[in-house]
């Protein structure tokens, strides 16, 4: 009887672990639909503008094959060395000139800007219209801000338990177990081995509640 109870408890614990530490996955956002048709001009001329427009917002535009007029570029890698944005500009001969299409893709969440404004700005850069500045990655907040929990938190009960909280609401412990944080006013919700409700101190340096207590490195 006791054995069955232990097995049930073990399975429940494992299921709980799976449920609470599963992080949200990023997805793809794609923009397409901008197409310019030029009467006159060559694919080579289109290529020059395509490469320039892509490099204005992304980097290292490369042509699929020399003279193809088909260009692909990726954005600057994020802090983890991963690409979160990319775009394709394709030039093709048309009956009286050339046609050019713009397709963009970004990772959301992850990219600091969305696919539509990226494509619109690349297209405007291509055509010489007014362009805007896209958002740049938000610098990681420093200090003990009271508007977020970003930073490193050390458990007051166990100095080896250090939680690293990121700008996207994620947290990770030294064992690689991940979870989430959410802050509303001074009420903190930690999803980490279950949901815990804590209160953030006025100086943003301490939080405690639900039997847990943490101090932030500032």
């Amino acid at each position, binding site marked *: 009887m006791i054995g069955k109870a232990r097995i049930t408890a073990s399975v429940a614990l494992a299921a709980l672990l799976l449920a609470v530490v599963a992080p949200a996955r990023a997805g793809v956002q794609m923009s397409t639909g901008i197409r310019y048709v030029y009467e006159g001009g060559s694919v080579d001329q289109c290529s020059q503008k395509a490469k320039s427009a892509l490099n204005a917002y992304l980097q290292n535009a490369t042509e699929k094959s020399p003279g193809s007029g088909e260009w692909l570029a990726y954005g600057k890698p994020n802090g983890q060395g*991963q*690409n979160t944005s990319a*775009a394709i500009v394709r030039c093709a001969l048309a009956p009286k000139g050339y046609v050019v299409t713009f397709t963009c893709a970004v990772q959301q969440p992850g990219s600091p800007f969305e696919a539509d404004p990226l494509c619109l700005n690349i297209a405007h850069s291509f055509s010489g219209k007014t362009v805007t500045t896209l958002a740049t990655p938000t610098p990681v907040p420093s200090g003990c801000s009271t508007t977020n929990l970003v930073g490193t938190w050390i458990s007051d009960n166990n100095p080896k338990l250090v939680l690293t909280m990121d700008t996207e609401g994620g947290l990770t412990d030294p064992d690689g177990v991940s979870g989430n944080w959410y802050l509303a006013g001074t009420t903190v919700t930690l999803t980490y081995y279950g949901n815990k409700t804590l209160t953030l101190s006025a100086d943003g340096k301490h939080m405690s509640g639900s039997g847990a207590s943490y101090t932030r490195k500032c």
Partner: protein
Amino acid sequence: MAGTPRYRLALFTVAFGAFAALCTTAAPAAIDMAMGDKKTVTGQTDSDCNARAQSALTSLLQRPDEINPGEWRAYAHVEAPATPPQAASIHCYPIDNGYFVTFECAVEIPPSQMSAADLCTKLGAAFDAKQSAYGTGTTGGKK
């Protein structure tokens, strides 16, 4: 001691917990984007291209949206609140005696196990596989 049921159960619990934690730790995801080969089809109309584009996207992702005339986009089908790990677009453009069509694909790796290039290759094959309702046209890749 090592062989007792209690010890084995404890070992199983610890191992399973560690496995669960390992499996659910997020790997860094990245965008992968690719363009498929451009195809030129002669003796056919825009309608043929649009029908093939819809069919190809539906077969690999889900029913597409027509963003503008001849410009199609579809995402992989996922249940909310999940976000789609794959997307593709197809552009149809008329020329004097037919049309040309291009394919663009983007995937998020992980979780997508298919690269953007593979998705575009499959999309091109699905486009070719859809028989025209207006007869046989000449389909060929043109890089």
